[in-house]
């Protein structure tokens, strides 16, 4: 399986080609990048096939040696990797194809595809890393690419700000990741993934290392309280959002925890923290999603919420269920985002209350969106249902009842806001100003939707009890997942249907009075303002830092620069003084020479009488 290095190498090559020749390729740039990612997809499929056949590999190449630290780079292929490769390459392929239609008019077309290729390459490298340092490098590269892509339309201040916010916020987590690596290095003496995971760590070390690693995951996977960048990241092009939310950026955090699972499992505290953070995140994001009006923001909060669920799964020990949810979520969230992109593309707005009745004009989009939405809502039989089911069951069986309750409540809220989103956007009457311009999106956009609809709807089946929890069994090397708990399943079905039903009543039938919840309701305002977290950060963190920086700046410009400028001033004045002697007048020099000779003669006469 040595050819596996081709998987990240192909998109990386595509990036380099587009970087230097992109301008020349112009509107044909996508052939390079789509070709590369499709090839990577094909290779990934083959690798998955081989891994299912029971083969895995770890290739390590010595990279550099710094003192005691021997760094290796390499490619680690196991079942988790194979699954992640499939998820990343397939979603990335579809997103790129979709982008061909979505970004057609953009003048930095080639640069967009170059960044997308690099983003994908970085993510694939991250997934394939056989060494934590290598993984960290890829991790940073992913962060950089997200910065480039979120800020792709950097002419817009909001986009540029969002890019900076994403970058800075995730950096906080990155520091944790780095410190975690330091701890691991001191504990293990080596940062190869295989040897780190195989090491038996003391509980305290495991707790410290895993919590630090989790800090990194919190940043990348937008866990409370580092989630604030993700909604803002909607300023990037919609396909980028799809990619970030489904396959690359946010999946990186979950992947990191999943990859390092043995370390987490060695520390009960860490597991509890992961589950707790996940629960808080899931519930918080779901509640915020209830009141958002921006279609992409709703989806963004739902992503955060679902990521919280995955963390819950990891926290309660349902490793395979969490990865399973990551997989199913990747597909249906990609589907939803691409669908949202299709809607925005034709409606030219992101406010759901300015839309309505779009289903009539955009049948394909509406249908696929419905599939994705139902999957997200946990509609029985669709993929989201099965994966969420596994997490809920695990939480319940483990006896983590508060977490279980939070997850269940999240499911209810999820079903409700998904229903709200769908019914407001696609049913009801169409606005007047919409009628003329709304149209179905081009084939390049709809086709990926259609393609994605199948895995989004059905991929859950491979992990369902109907198929004997094959997915979980595959990940956990034959061991099957949790046994079906009928009560949990019943509760799950009930909350999903209840949420959807209530949404249907509220937004589609008009049975409930519209002013039921006043917009001045403090709770509503709290949600609407996302628990004022941004404001708290601004006041509590940014303001002091900025104030301190200002003080330091004035010290710097006043005292430090003053000293430097003073020196410069002194030098230049001294130079002016000395320059007088250097007038370019040989006769002046001659006069000075005469004086010097006189002095010399006197000196000789007085002290050195010959």
């Amino acid at each position, binding site marked *: 399986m040595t050819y596996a290095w081709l998987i990240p190498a192909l998109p990386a090559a595509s990036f380099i080609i587009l970087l230097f020749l992109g301008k020349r390729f112009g509107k044909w740039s996508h052939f390079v990048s789509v070709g590369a990612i499709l090839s990577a997809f094909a290779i990934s499929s083959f690798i998955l096939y081989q891994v299912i056949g029971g083969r895995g590999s770890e290739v390590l190449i010595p990279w550099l040696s710094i003192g005691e630290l021997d760094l290796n780079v390499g490619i680690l292929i196991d079942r988790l990797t194979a699954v992640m490769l499939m998820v990343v390459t397939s979603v990335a392929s579809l997103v790129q194809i979709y982008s061909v239609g979505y970004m057609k008019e953009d003048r930095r077309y080639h640069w967009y595809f170059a960044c997308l290729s690099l983003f994908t390459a970085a993510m694939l490298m991250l997934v394939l890393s056989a060494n934590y340092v290598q993984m960290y490098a890829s991790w940073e590269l992913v962060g950089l690419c997200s910065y480039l892509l979120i800020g792709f339309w950097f002419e817009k201040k909001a986009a540029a700000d969002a890019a900076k916010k994403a970058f800075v916020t995730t950096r906080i987590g990155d520091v944790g990741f780095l410190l975690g690596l330091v701890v691991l290095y001191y504990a293990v003496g080596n940062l190869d993934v295989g040897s780190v995971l195989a090491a038996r760590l003391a509980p305290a070390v495991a707790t410290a290392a895993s919590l630090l690693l989790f800090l990194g995951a919190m940043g990348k996977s937008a866990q409370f309280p580092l989630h604030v960048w993700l909604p803002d990241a909607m300023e990037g092009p919609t396909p980028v959002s799809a990619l970030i939310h489904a396959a690359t950026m946010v999946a990186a955090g979950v992947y990191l925890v999943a990859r390092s699972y043995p370390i987490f499992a060695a520390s009960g505290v860490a597991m509890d923290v992961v589950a707790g953070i996940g629960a808080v995140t899931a519930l918080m994001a779901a509640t915020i999603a209830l009141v958002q009006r921006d279609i992409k923001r709703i989806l963004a909060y739902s992503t955060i919420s679902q990521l919280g669920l995955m963390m819950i799964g990891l926290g309660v020990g349902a490793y395979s269920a969490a990865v399973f949810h990551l997989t199913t979520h990747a597909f249906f969230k990609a589907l939803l985002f691409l669908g949202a992109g299709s809607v925005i593309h034709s409606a030219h707005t992101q406010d759901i209350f300015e839309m309505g009745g779009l289903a009539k004009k955009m049948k394909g989009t509406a249908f696929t969106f419905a599939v994705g939405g139902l999957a997200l809502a946990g509609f029985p039989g669709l993929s989201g249902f099965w994966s969420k089911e596994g997490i809920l069951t695990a939480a319940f069986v483990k006896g983590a009842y508060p977490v279980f309750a939070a997850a269940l409540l999240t499911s209810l809220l999820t079903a409700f806001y998904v229903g709200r989103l769908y019914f407001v956007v696609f049913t009801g009457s169409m606005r007047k100003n919409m009628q003329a311009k709304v149209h179905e999106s081009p084939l390049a956009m709809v086709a990926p939707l259609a393609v994605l609809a199948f895995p989004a709807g059905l991929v859950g089946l491979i992990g369902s009890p109907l198929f004997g929890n094959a997915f979980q069994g595959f990940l956990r090397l034959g061991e099957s997942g949790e046994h079906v708990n009928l009560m949990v399943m019943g509760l799950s079905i009930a909350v999903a249907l209840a949420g959807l039903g209530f949404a249907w009543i509220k937004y589609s039938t008009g049975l409930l009075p519209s002013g039921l919840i006043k917009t001045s309701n403090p709770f509503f305002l709290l949600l609407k303002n996302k628990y004022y977290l941004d404001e708290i950060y601004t006041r509590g963190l940014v303001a002091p830092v900025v104030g301190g920086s200002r003080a330091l700046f004035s010290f710097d410009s006043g005292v430090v620069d003053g000293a430097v400028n003073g020196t410069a001033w002194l030098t230049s004045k001294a130079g002016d003084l000395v320059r007088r002697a250097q007038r370019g007048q040989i*006769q002046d020099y001659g*006069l000075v020479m*005469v*004086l010097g*000779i*006189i002095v010399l*003669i*006197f000196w000789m*006469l007085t002290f050195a009488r010959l």
Partner: protein
Amino acid sequence: MSGPELVVFSLLGLAGVGSAVAVVSGKDLFRSTLFFGSFLLSVAGLYFTLEASFVGIMQIFVYVGGVVVMILFGIMLTQQEGARLNASLERRLTVAGPVALLAGILIAAIMTTSFKTVREVPGVDIATLGKLFTNDYVLPFEIVSVLLLAALVGAVVVAKEREK
């Protein structure tokens, strides 16, 4: 120095000093150059009194007949109407002080030093000089000839008008 010698020396010395002063202080460059010529002739006369007749003749031949005429050419070709020849009075005084001091120190040093002199070193004839040039000092002689050639070529190159 005997009386008549002292008279000749004084006359030549006065002529030299007077000419030299005229050279460095005159307002007219052309006249300065002529005074330079008379200065050179005075020095040539001093050489004759020093029994260095060949050097004196060469002084006339090379300096008066060559250098002075060349400088006259230079003046003719670069003459400017109303150009000031002297620096400001302030500057002249500033320079005169140290220079006078230097000359004074030198003269004082010369007068208070007792040199090991030999009276009546017979004047060397030209044949002896020629032998010195072609034996003891043949290398400097050749170098000077190369220098003259270089100066010849260099002067032509430097002074030549650049062709546009």
